[in-house]
């Protein structure tokens, strides 16, 4: 019998970083910015959290203050990804650089940045293993509700996660509401669909693009933070984050730019990502592992093909995605 009670929490824990990444990217893409730098942003979000937490753990005397143990890494992570977002906006919105090139460069930069500081911290802490362990602060991040353990399978499936997991779902729900029911959402969609029209309607296109992209980056950065501080229990090793950033971008397409759908889709993708561990063949046929890990991408490709063929206008990417807006162009 397939062990659902063990599988679902793993799937959720795998899914949360993807959910952060995809909601962040959905917000960004709704403004017409195709930020392929998301994998890099999530990396930076992760390492900045690690740096904050490392400094706090090494300087705090006595027991750690729970509030500071959470706030310092979180603020560091948000600041790091905000700077990445500002950099992306400055290059593409203000200087009108090509979005694809800028995004890809930022991913390369973000991963390099993470590995450089990760490597430096490992050197400083003079450990034998190629990783840093921040168990003390991490404990605050992964702390679940005290009564969760007492509720059997229900507690395990629904209540066994750290607060960042619930925050991601709240963010996704709020975002879905804002898109559908508020004027801000209407304006943001207009900017992403047709910036010239939005501009003529009196919407500040530059402001919307900046705010959406920077907020999107900050949300995505939290995914990196969750990954290190909660999922990996505070253990940072270089390149461990893997291809999750790309998976988050694939999710944006898979969910047809709907953050509420992304909650389920992220968990589904998270599940597919670790499915091989739960299949009976796992030990005897390790060579299949990578094939199983391909499943999310294959599904995304199928969705892409399917939506392109159906060609329903609402399910298409924002019309101006990937192009920069310049008012006086003629």
């Amino acid at each position, binding site marked *: 019998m397939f062990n659902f009670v063990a599988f679902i929490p793993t799937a959720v824990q795998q899914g949360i970083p993807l959910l952060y990444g995809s909601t962040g990217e959905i917000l960004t893409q709704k403004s017409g910015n195709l930020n392929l730098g998301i994998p890099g942003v999530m990396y930076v979000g992760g390492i900045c959290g690690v740096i904050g937490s490392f400094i706090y753990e090494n300087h705090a005397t006595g027991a750690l203050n729970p509030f500071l143990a959470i706030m310092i890494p979180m603020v560091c992570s948000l600041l790091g990804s905000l700077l990445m977002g500002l950099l992306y906006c400055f290059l593409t919105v203000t200087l009108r650089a090509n979005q694809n090139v800028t995004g890809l460069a930022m991913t390369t930069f973000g991963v390099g940045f993470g590995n450089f500081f990760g490597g430096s911290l490992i050197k400083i802490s003079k450990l034998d293993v190629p990783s840093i362990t921040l168990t003390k602060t991490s404990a605050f991040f992964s702390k679940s509700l005290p009564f969760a353990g007492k509720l059997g399978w229900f507690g395990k499936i629904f209540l066994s996660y750290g607060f960042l997991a619930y925050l991601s779902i709240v963010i996704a729900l709020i975002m879905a509401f804002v898109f559908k029911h508020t*004027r801000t959402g*209407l*304006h943001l969609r*207009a900017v992403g669909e047709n910036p010239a029209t*939005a501009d*003529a309607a*009196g919407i500040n296109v530059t402001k919307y693009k900046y705010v959406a992209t920077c907020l999107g980056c900050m949300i995505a950065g939290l995914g990196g933070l969750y990954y290190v501080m909660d999922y990996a229990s505070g253990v940072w090793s270089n390149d461990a984050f893997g291809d999750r950033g790309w998976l988050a971008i694939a999710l944006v397409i898979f969910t047809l730019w709907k953050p509420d759908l992304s909650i389920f889709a992220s968990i589904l993708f998270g599940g597919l990502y670790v499915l091989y561990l739960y299949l009976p063949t796992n030990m005897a046929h390790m060579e299949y592992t990578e094939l199983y890990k391909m499943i999310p991408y294959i599904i995304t490709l199928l969705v892409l093909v399917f939506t392109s063929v159906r060609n329903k*206008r609402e399910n*298409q990417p924002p019309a101006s995605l990937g192009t920069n807006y310049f008012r*006086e162009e003629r």
Partner: protein
Amino acid sequence: MSEKTTAVSLRDIKKTFGPVVANENVTLDIYKGEILSLLGENGSGKTTLMNMLSGIYHPDEGQIFINGEAVSIRSPHDAFNLGIGMVHQHFKLIDVMTAAENIILGLEGKLNLKEAKVRINEICDKYGFEVDLDKKIYDMSVSEKQTVEIVKVLYRGAQILILDEPTAVLTPQETEKLFAVMRNMKSDGKTIIIITHKLHEVEAISDRVAILRKGAFVGELETAKTNAQEMTDMMVGRSVSLNIDRPEPVNPTERIKVEGLSVRDQDGVYKLKDVSFTARSGEILGIAGISGCGQKELLEAIAGLQRVETGSVSYIAPDGSVEELIGKNPRDIAELGVSLSFVPEDRLGMGLVGNMDLADNMMLRSFRHGKSRFFTDRKAPRKLAKTVVKELKVSTPSIETPVRRLSGGNVQKVLVGREIASSPTVLMTAYAVRGLDINSSYTIYDLINQQKKNGVAVIFVGEDLDVLLELSDRILVLCGGEVSGIIDGRTADKQTVGMMMTKKGGEA
């Protein structure tokens, strides 16, 4: 005259784009409750001037007064606050949103679609608009989209409306409807500025005409006291003949015979259904129809660019031999002498590459004719480019200028010039004068007539019915992809053709 109050005053407006002067020394008064036509050739700066009123551009020099007060319009938002609303030539609407969402776009406050819809309906009732507020823009016809645009402007409380070539895409019936609404708005005390190329519309709707030439204001006229000839002369700066030639066809023989042609699009919807006609040498066959009624598909089917469901297209060569075109590839069809020049809405999309210069664009037709299999001949296209520039008076700094930098009229001259240079036996041209001013249009008509005299079978798809009626020997009217009728261009009248465009056969 003294009871008139000025709504807008422009004083010495100047605007430059790099080295190009778009507007200079424009001084103009527009009064409350009047309809003013803004007339001028392409590139004479009409749209630029109006864009400065609507906050898209900001003037480099000069002063704008609204209701007597000096203002600075820095953004479209400022323009709304001053009660100025502009309906652009290319609609500024979001396709995936509904009419209602588009109308309230950009406004402040809490989102309340229900309340907004009530207010929108009030406006519609007041001026006589018909619009389905829950319909998505991509499902709408051009005329519906335009209605949404105008309602959007009124919803913002605009007192001064600017309409940029509103009738360019409408049928005569739709135009009449628009004019009726405009008269309603005028009697409600609104000021309307309309940009148009069509002189008979100027005469039909406006109180006064202001004329721009090469960015400068050249004068204003009262519509009642002027005529088309005077307006054109002022616009062009010299006397222009307003008659389109229609030489009698010389020895017409069948050149293209289309029988039972049907084309379906991706979704299986018929774009053309059982279309049959013939095009003869030395004759201009005009094709009329509301945009998107199968004109494009028809021309593309003949040129081999469209998959055909059923039917046949035969090409009868001057020596009498008959060739079936369906199933042939576009290159072979072009070699037979069948040439297609299609001017799409953006003017560049088909036939020319914007970033390439004139000579290279000429080469798009001739790149296969080179010295050997590997090398292409660059000299001939350069020569051709020079000839086209000289003979068609294309205004360009050099033949090395990328085509995208040229103004619309010049781009079209290059396109049509190239097609004619390949000395076709069949010349198909769609929207050859799309968005062109009178002067450039006439140059193109002359070119087409020249080809007709040379015995070319011309198929001319046009938007302007007046021109079709004056230019064509026969007119084929399409309605929803079907032939609504083929009539003699010399005896047809506009009302009949208009009816045929909207209903098959044309009976009401």
